């Protein structure tokens, strides 16, 4: 049990696909929201179970509080005090993550199909890569996501939340990587037999090297430049 505990502590939040080891501002903001909610939930859980234990183990303990007060305090006041600030906090967090016009410096198209991802870079001469997404570090990028056949979902957990790739629609997700390096993304909407294997690599380059690195990557991998249609 002790060994298990230390394993949990050591590997608790890490991993190449972990939402809690954030490597971009959006994932970071959401991870903070999570830790706040975890703390609050633990307190409320302890309160409810503590009350249950008290009313069972100490009969008569809560009978001095009138029934109406029990219901008003626990059923109205408590949720009201918790939910109002939480909803406001989440709303503001969500607004900040939106792809508002005119801020992003890159726009990259992502198209999911059974079972691969195609990325097109209109700002970089229209090159195209398959199953490898190249990004500049420290630059906010708007991903224009769509589906070719069925619904997929574009997700790089360490950068930001996910957005669905719906055929016939284009959804925009703003992502940003803090540091250069290798990251991972995956499809997160069930899309058939190959769903589990529909992962993609994310290579983040220093911003100044991005165009050159992308051109080189596209040139060295012929499968990537060829359009599939």
């Amino acid at each position, binding site marked *: 049990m002790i060994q298990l505990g230390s394993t949990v502590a050591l590997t608790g939040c890490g991993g190449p696909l972990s939402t*809690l080891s954030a490597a971009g501002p959006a994932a970071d903001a959401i991870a903070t929201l999570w830790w706040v909610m975890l703390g609050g939930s633990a307190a409320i859980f302890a309160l409810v179970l503590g009350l249950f234990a008290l009313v069972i183990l100490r009969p008569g303990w809560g009978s001095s*509080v009138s029934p109406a007060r029990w219901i008003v305090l626990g059923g109205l006041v408590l949720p009201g005090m918790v939910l109002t600030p939480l909803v406001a906090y989440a709303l503001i967090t969500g607004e900040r993550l939106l792809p508002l016009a005119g801020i992003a410096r890159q726009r990259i198209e992502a198209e999911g199909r059974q079972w691969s991802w195609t990325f097109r870079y209109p700002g970089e001469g229209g090159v195209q890569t398959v199953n490898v997404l190249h990004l500049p570090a420290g630059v906010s990028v708007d991903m224009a996501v769509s589906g070719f056949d069925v619904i997929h979902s574009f997700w790089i957990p360490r950068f930001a939340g996910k957005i669905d790739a719906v055929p016939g629609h284009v959804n925009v997700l703003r992502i940003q990587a803090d540091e250069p390096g290798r990251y991972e993304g995956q499809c997160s909407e069930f899309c058939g037999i190959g769903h589990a294997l529909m992962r993609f690599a994310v290579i983040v380059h220093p911003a100044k090297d991005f165009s050159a690195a992308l051109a080189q990557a596209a040139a060295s991998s012929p499968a990537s430049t060829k359009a599939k249609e």
Partner: protein
Amino acid sequence: MSASVDQSAQGSPALQLHRQLAAIWGTGPGLQRLAAVNHSIIGRRFMATAFVFFAIGGVLGMLTRVQLATPTADFMTPGTYNQVFTLHGSVMLFLFAIPLVEGMGVYLTPKILGARDLAFPRLTAFGYWCYLFGGSILTGALLFGVAPDGGWFMYTPLSSNVYTPGVNADVWLLGVTFVEISALAFAVEIIVSILKIRAPGMSLDRMPIFGWYMLITALMMVAAFPPLILGSILLEVERAFHLPFFDPTRGGDALLWQHLFWLFGHPDVYIIFLPMAGALSTIIPVLAGGPLVGYRAIVVAIIALAFVSFGIWVHHMFTVGIPHLALAFFSASSAIVAVPTAVQVFAWLATLAHGRPRWNVPMLYVFGFFFIFALGGLTGVMLAMVPFDWQAHNTYFVVAHMHYVVAGALAFPMLAALYYWLPLLTGRMAIHQLSVPAFWLVFVGFNLTFFLMHLTGLRGMPRRIYTYTGEEGWNWLNLLSSVGGFIMTIGFALVVIDLLAQLRYGRRVRRDPWKAETLEWAMPIPPAPYNFASIPHVEIGPDRPAPDGLAPSLARGEGYLGFARNGWQETLGVHMTSGAPEQLIVLSRSTYLPLYTALAIAVAVLAMLFHFYLPALAAALVVAGLFVLAGQSAGLSRDYGPLPVGQGVSVPPHTELAGSPPWWALVFTLIADGTLFASLLFGTLYLWISAPNWPPPQTFTPDLGLAFATVVALLVAAAAARGSQRSISAGGTARGWIGLAALGLVVAIAVVVGLIGDIVPRPTEHALGATAAALLAYVAFHAGIGLLFLLSNLLRLRGGFLSSRRSMDPHLTRLWLDYTVVTGVIALGLVSALPALVRSLGT
């Protein structure tokens, strides 16, 4: 059954009365059991069948845990895994959770409300057979390797005939829709029964809280299931006949399916939870030894919950690309739904605080409920926060959350209820030596399995993957979850052994072992098929009719209807709100008709699955014929006038009263139908506004003259139905009026079929044509059903079932035709206006 007669009341009046009533209410032996319509029998069958499906679903769940216990396992192929996880979800939800709730409602509701049976015994049986056959088709497909494999919410286009060309998706769409017939039948029956068939004196504000929970649940079902049924029909039509409702390349939209599915799917969580919460609200006060705290607050809370639960379906769709401010609305309403739930939780805590709680096996499961439901509720609030959902959506965090909610809302209260009510079913008490370790195995195993999944999900594991590489940091989490799953399974196996042991060796009890306050304990246990030898008058309430002293006097026939008459299965109908006795309801007897009708539907479904469309149509006509036939043995064949029902009260039989159960059944059926129609209107407008590839290259110019002619024909039919109603009320034969109404309907159907033929773009080419065809087909279908109503009227006139006093039938026909006119005008209006709207306003 004589063993069930109370010892102390075994004086001759009680025993004599029991023998007379048992002869009337009993179901025959052997194969005649297939003709049973009694609510106790059907309720038990519902619950037993649900537990069998629970075992099947549990085994499927364990198979997924075996596959996921280690990375890169090849225990199952991806194709098999997809079938297994899809069926696990579908079976647990559609074949276990909902039917279990229905079974509990069927079995307990009449007993708690002081009635002898539900309003429509044949409908109860019909619902059960639909459930059994539909569920068998769905699960049986696994044996042939053609089980559904698109996930239990069947998102299109993956489930379309392009990407799932086999029969797998059809099995889901047809099988689940078949099962949902039983849900709608149950909903209508429960609403009417609760509103009309209670013990006299039981006004709504004296009704036991369980009745309120079942009533609200059933009302929610009436509104929640039609969108799913419509979606399933449209998707099946798209798959079978290529009408594009969801295909984005032809003007359909995959997101329409998601809206229709979750419009059902979210309220469904509460449809499962509310009856179990009703059980908790019934059990907790008994175990606490005091009255339920906050009866009125709870009633208000569950009504609020019912409304709010229809306004939060979009929180399953936070990542599909809906504008953030729209999401914020659904986020806030999803948070608000926590309030009525908190009201109930604290009402229960207050009930315990103000009593002297007993600690026993049901209470142990109440503890399990508090623990697990609290966690599920808290993660639910987390997921309602839009940015967090963007990360957690479709990961194992959601899998963990939904299992906590469903186990908290359903499994633990269900087991509390089972241990509490099993003495009623079997007449025996549980053996605690086994019950307690079984609980702890289930509880520990459950938490080990699912608590860790929160973390697995946060570390990025998406749901519905059949394998992973082993480098993601999920290995030990998955392994422990699988171990926990096996512990939980052992726990459930122990529960089953415990229940079987109780059945065989449990201590015999003859009356209420809990000192409960509700009427189901005011009868000898296990109950006789007629429940109450006589029906009590409820003086106080709610939840306090004090059954202790009641049972013997009721068994002696000292309440209402304490006698046998004409071999009738009698129960009392009351005024909806005040509970004053109002009508004598004569219920239908055992019959094979429900079985035959469900079998005919099963033939239609199987024929559809094999693409034999003509045999399917023939089977559907047989179904229609059987329904008309069923009408030929309902009601009474002569006038009786007021009949004595005991206590010096006389009321007319239900056949001679305007507000009888059939009337209300049709009203609520039409509310369900109207919800389906509204969903169809929503779908049409939704596709126009948000689907890709609109407008179509060409649109038709609607023939306003023909549309107008249809409306006139429908109006003539509705007016003629009024004429027939007046004629029958005046003692006439009404044949001319019925003929005129039929003529109007036939003309309307012919014109509508012609209109469908003129639609451009063709229904198979573009969603505009497809939705227009669906709207027109809706009108034609309802006119066709109207013809069946008229046919039944004619046959029943000839059979002597109608008179100036017994004139319910033409009222029902009139109501149906009025509905057909209203929806027909709307549908024809929209179809006529749509091309012009699309052209002038664009998309």
